[in-house]
């Protein structure tokens, strides 16, 4: 995702000005799926990472399902950590009005960015809307098989998260890479790659 940065090749720091929204991400997913499809690719398996990446895939799939998408691989799939009190306050009129004035950049708490997520209010609200239940809903409403790869050492995963996923989408397959953290660092990156390759080989078998 460009995250609103032209030709972005670096990760965007929490303190960098975040002006993009979840809709902008869903639009970018659609752009690339369409671009692949226009290039003749019939079996497309998008791979998502972490909360906002996986959410933008799930949301795109639900909003505008594309026939070439045969599966979706969701790695390190986890909910977006949001300060609910902050979200609720900003959703009210008074708070919303003060923060949104002039597209002002303010600091919020989103995911890893604790109190330093610098973004416009719209950006914050577009991401903070995806609480746990809403994400699980996206899982349950998926139109394609979901391959979920998690790390056994991923500490950001909520308790009983796999069970909650299976409970909302029993078809979803969950693979756990042993000793892998949230970012699959080290040799677990190869395990991740093996898992993805294995999943991709199953496409023809479907």
């Amino acid at each position, binding site marked *: 995702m460009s995250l609103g940065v032209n*030709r972005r090749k670096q990760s*965007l720091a929490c*303190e*960098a000005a975040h*002006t993009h929204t979840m809709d902008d991400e869903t639009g970018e997913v659609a752009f690339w799926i369409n671009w692949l499809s226009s290039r003749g690719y019939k079996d497309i398996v998008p791979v998502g990472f972490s909360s906002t990446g996986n959410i933008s895939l799930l949301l795109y799939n639900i909003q505008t399902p594309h026939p070439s998408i045969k599966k979706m691989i969701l790695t390190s799939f986890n909910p977006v950590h949001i300060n609910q009190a902050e979200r609720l306050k900003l959703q009210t009129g008074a708070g919303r009005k003060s923060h949104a004035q002039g597209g002002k*950049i303010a600091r919020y708490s989103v995911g890893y960015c604790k109190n330093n997520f610098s973004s416009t209010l719209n950006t914050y609200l577009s991401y903070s809307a995806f609480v746990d239940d809403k994400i699980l809903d996206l899982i349950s409403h998926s139109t394609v098989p979901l391959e979920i790869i998690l790390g056994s050492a991923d500490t950001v995963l909520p308790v009983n998260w796999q069970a909650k996923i299976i409970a909302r989408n029993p078809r979803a397959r969950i693979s756990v890479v042993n000793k892998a953290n949230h970012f699959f660092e080290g040799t677990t990156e190869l395990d991740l790659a093996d898992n993805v390759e294995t999943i991709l080989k199953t496409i023809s078998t479907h």
Partner: protein
Amino acid sequence: MMTRNILRLNNLWPFTIKVYAFIFIIIMSLVFGFLGWGMQYKLENIRNEAHIRNNKAALDEISYVINHIQNEISHIGKTIASQDETSQQFFNPEYYHYWRDNRILGTATLPEYVQAVELYTTQGHALTRQTIGNMPKRLPEQNIRNYVTRQAGDDFLYIFYPVTSPQTNATQGYIGFKINLLGAIISEQRFSNIEVNTLSFSVGEKEYIPLEQIYSRMKFVLIPNAENIALTSSIEKSQRQILFAMIVLYFIFYLMLSSILSAPLRRLSLHIDSLRKGQGGLLTKSYTRSLPLAELENVRNSLNDYQTKLEEMHLSLNEKNNELWQLAHHDPLTGIYNRRGFEEGWKHMLSVSSGHRLGVALLLFDCDHFKAINDTYGHPVGDKVLQVITHTLQTTLRHGDRLYRIGGDEFATLFLDVDANLALNTAERCLETVSQYDFTSIGILEPVRISAGMAYASGTNVDALSNLPKQADVAMYHAKRPGKSKIAVFDESMLENTDILFSNRINSLVFNAIENDDSIEMHYQPITNLGTGVVDYYEALVRIRDGDNLIIPSTIFPIIAERRLEAEFDIVVFGKIAKDIEMGKIPPGKGITFNLSGPGLVDPFVLEKINSLEIYLSKYTLILEVTETALITQLHLASTILNRLRLKGFKIALDDFGSGYSSLSYLANMPVDCVKFDITLIQQLFEGTRQSIIIENLASMVLKAGYDLVAEGVETEEILTRIKELGFTRGQGFLFGRPESTCKESADLAMFKKK
């Protein structure tokens, strides 16, 4: 001026040790001063070199810092430029202020000295109209990307870098930094060469100085070089220490020179000066204090040795002087004072008595006929006579009276503070004592007598005092005269007869006559036979010619006697008579009588001369006239000699009989052929007194004894008649003829004319 200085320098020469020490100290001070100046000069050069080096080091240091700042800012600029967020600002500067203020300036990634950052488009326009920190709205000219300017009293460095696209590497724009230059320099470096608080840049407001030119605008004060300071301090400290040490050394050197060399030398010099000023008396103490220098100690020892030797020599010299004085002032034969001693004693007497009421008497003693004694008995006996006389006089004189031997047989003594009578008594006692001495004990058969001449004066009469020696001589002359008292006290009347004695001209003529007989003339007075009236003999009488004048015997003989020249004069006279004989001045067949002095009688040369006349005895009767005084003095010897002469044919006449002792007993023993009565006896014949009777009988006795009898002083016919009556054989006097240079016949007297 220069001459005066040279003279002043000459007065100082030779220099004292202190002056040399002073000169040495001045030279050393000059050398030290020169070395110190040289060291200071070197030190100043080192300081200057160090300053230049430090200044360069300081510039290098600043240059390094500025380069470091440039590099650091360059690195930061590249980092910022490489960020997606930065590139994003050129595409969409909507959140540029957020990016600048929060993502660049708000983070801790920039150094504190960076005060502002701005992005510029490729055209040089700032991305925002609201630049901060006086960052320019537009970039400066292309060739002035980095410059320094002054704002509100502070100096700021502006640096601009291009921002390139990571994908295309094309320039997207520029990033500029505003840097507090002084703050950056101070914060970036701990300077070791610069007092950083003094660093400043002389840049004006709105003046833009390219960074590379900023070095010429810098002002700073160097940190004093610790090594230089330490070196300088160390050198100066060393100089002070050396100066102090040199002053101390100078002081010690001066003290050493003074105490070790100068003071001992001065003491030695004073000691030597003391020796020199001792005026003959050496110091009793030698220089005993030891000296601190071996060389000086050697000098001191040598000096002491020298002093000891000098003292010994001085003592020896004193002894020699005393001995010499004794020799110079004493007569070796008799041991009494000599003439030199007399002269000193006389001067002393003059100095003591002059102007005082002190009577001074000068006594002269003279041995009678001493030359005859000497010639007869020999010098050893003569010496014994002198010793006897000396001893006798000494024992007779008062204790303390000095006796002087002032001539061969002349003695003198001086009496101070005596009256004339006491002096005269002493003189008489001396004569008496000598006359009583038994001279036969030393082999002399004749009586030895001395004569005395005395002069007396009071000290108040200075002229008389100074004339005492001459007066005593005159008195002695009188005492020596035949028939006179053996003691004579000077009185003024004596000068009448003796002035001639002291006439230098007469003396000179007499001496010349002895040397050369040309001035001698013999005059012949006839001695007439009273029986025939014919001249039997001529008495040869000597004269000395002085121009037109003739000097007669009464003038000549006192000088001859005084000078003891009787023998020499006799020889000359006899020679002259011989010449007259040879010249035929004397008629052959006549007799010639001539006087033989007392000393001549016993003189071998005179006798030899007499013997040479023996050849004339065949033509002339030669008669030697001797005085009774001459005979009596040395009767034995005289008798022997005269007898020998008589045997050869010479006749002997006793001259001037009656003027002396006229001893009949002596006369009886005298080997004479003829007796000549002195004029005094002849004159007494007419006095009608007892004396005339005695003389008449004396004449009779002489005649009866067989002697020829000659009367002297026949000046009148009355006398002639008288002596003829008395039987005198011959007569001599003016009546018959005066002495003439030629032999003349006797006067033609009526008494002798043939009837």
